[in-house]
């Protein structure tokens, strides 16, 4: 067996040459982007156009985007640049000084506070900018209309006893292939994940493994809408026509509450939480102005428009 893998030399050459060119091109692009980054490193320091980097919570990203768009009309020379990724990502960006404002759907953890102090010299300032009800979603065709926190804990907690729909009294879901509850959850750097763990699963408890851990609030709702036998939790603002929001009661058989602006603001809905913005110490003028606007009447009106709950006035 003599001649085995001999590739036609000319074609190999062409491929090599192409690969080299591609590599050089990517180096060039990379160096370009690095130099660009250096120029924009100090946001808002040059020219009249100032920018605010706003990074963090996925739950809040729709809201933050809506604020940023509206703010462009109010103060045209400041552009607010919003990106998501999760509360943890936002706070990490604050610590690394790449964000002017970190959005978070959970409190700063003591470790993070210590790190921030080390990095920026002061502990971050916290602003509550609105409230969010964490809705429990099922597929549109699911007959389930209410669920208790105890049941939710038994579904999601490690060693929890509930994993069949029939245990909740649901015997037939159109389109579902079997009786299993398909748990849709969030990835473990999500503020929503941490909040759900603290309030539903138990502070020291852990989630049952095997849930589908989605990367965003919207993904949870979308996946629930596409999977008849599933159950998920996500921000109230993400409800769509493909899913159904379930009423939640504290105890089994107790009065069940539908999440809404009214029930979240008067705290009768059991799983709602504040949404935060963190700035490094005392914010600079342009950031301070933005947060003041967010907390003002026009800013809070947008909170309500995007499906979250505004601050009580």
């Amino acid at each position, binding site marked *: *067996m003599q*001649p*085995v*893998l*001999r*590739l*036609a*030399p000319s*074609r*190999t*050459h062409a491929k*090599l040459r192409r*690969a*080299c060119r591609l*590599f*050089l091109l990517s180096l060039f692009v990379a160096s370009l982007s690095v130099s660009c980054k250096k120029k924009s490193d100090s946001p808002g320091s040059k020219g009249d156009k100032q920018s605010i980097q706003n990074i963090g919570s996925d739950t809040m990203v729709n809201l933050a985007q809506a604020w940023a768009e509206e703010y462009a009309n109010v103060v045209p020379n400041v552009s607010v640049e919003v990106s998501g*990724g*999760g509360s*943890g*990502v936002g706070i*990490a960006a604050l610590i690394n000084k790449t964000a002017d404002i970190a959005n978070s759907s959970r409190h700063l953890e003591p*470790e*993070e506070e210590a*790190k921030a102090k080390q990095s920026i010299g002061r502990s971050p300032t916290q602003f509550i900018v609105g409230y969010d009800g964490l809705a429990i979603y099922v597929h549109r065709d699911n007959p389930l209309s209410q669920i208790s926190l105890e049941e939710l804990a038994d579904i999601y907690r490690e060693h929890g006893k509930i994993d069949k729909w029939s245990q909740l009294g649901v015997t037939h879901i159109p389109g*579902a*292939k*079997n009786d*299993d509850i*398909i748990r849709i959850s969030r*990835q*473990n*750097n999500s503020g929503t994940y941490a909040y759900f*763990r603290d309030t539903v699963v138990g*502070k*020291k*408890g*852990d989630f049952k*493994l*095997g*849930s*589908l*851990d*989605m*990367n965003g609030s919207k993904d949870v709702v979308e*996946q629930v809408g*596409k*999977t008849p*036998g*599933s159950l998920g939790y996500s921000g109230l603002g993400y409800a769509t026509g493909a899913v159904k929001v379930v009423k939640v009661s504290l105890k089994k058989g107790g009065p069940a509450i539908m999440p809404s602006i009214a029930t979240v603001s008067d705290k009768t809905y059991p799983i709602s939480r504040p949404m935060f913005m963190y700035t490094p110490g005392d914010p600079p003028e342009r950031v301070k102005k933005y947060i003041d606007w967010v907390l003002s009447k026009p800013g809070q009106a947008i909170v309500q428009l995007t499906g979250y709950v505004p601050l009580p006035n």
Partner: protein
Amino acid sequence: MQLPSQPVASAKPRHALGSPRGPQRNKWEGLLETALEWLIRLCGISAILFVFGIFFFVLREGAGFLFGKLDFVQFFTSEEWYPTSLGNVRYGVLALIAGTFSVTTLAMVIAVPFGLGAAVFVSEFCGQRVRETLKVVIELLAAIPSVVWGFIGISVMNPLLQEVFHAPIGLNVLNGALLLALMSVPIMVSIGEDALKAVPDSFREAALAMGATRWQTIYRVLLPAAKNGLLAAVLLGVGRAVGETMAVLMATGHAVNIPKSPFDPVRTLTATIAAELGEASVGSPHYQVLFVIGILLFSITFAVNLIADLVVKGSRKD
């Protein structure tokens, strides 16, 4: 790291082309030639530097944990992956390894017949025109970004699998495997075709002269003659499948779970790193354990590539 046998095969002709010769060339052309030659050489060497660099940095980030706090028994035998637990942190990657292997294996079961079949067709059966069209289309398939594949997995395959297979969840092993198969087929086809092309025509002529049918020629002569190249094609496809991240992150459901059927959701090693590294604070045990997973992945792909290389080299000596 890829295409292990190419540089060896092409080293000689390149050198002959690269050296300046002939009296009509002036000094500048000669200098330019040398400069370019060095540039190309640098490109070649840079690959080695990059591989070592990557390995060094991954090892450095993970080493503190790997040689210190890591409980190897738990790491490899427990399926409990609780890196951010407040009460009881556990780092067991068995389920993640099972996820990677199940998706990769199923992907190869789907991709190998298609990839090698397509390679045989392109190299032996089709006419010039069809061949050129096919190759362009296959290269296009290779050029589709993996996030686009992931999107197809979520929006097209997800409801389709529920419909066709009555799977309770559309994001599962089969979904990821189908995407990976589609992504690794182009590699297999182009390398497999090259391998078949490298079999001298005298082999085919001899087979025909013996009265062999086309099928017999392929089955008895061409496939055995090109088997190393074909195996390299398959193993490179495996390497692609093991390392793929974005598409499997989106399409497999991202659930820590040892799959019992192709319709169970899983989570792969790569997807875990992608989903969790952004948040893990630098230097924390969680961050380090993700780098240990990186080392594990690096070792797996390195082993696959090494085997591919040894197989090709080993049987060349026969």
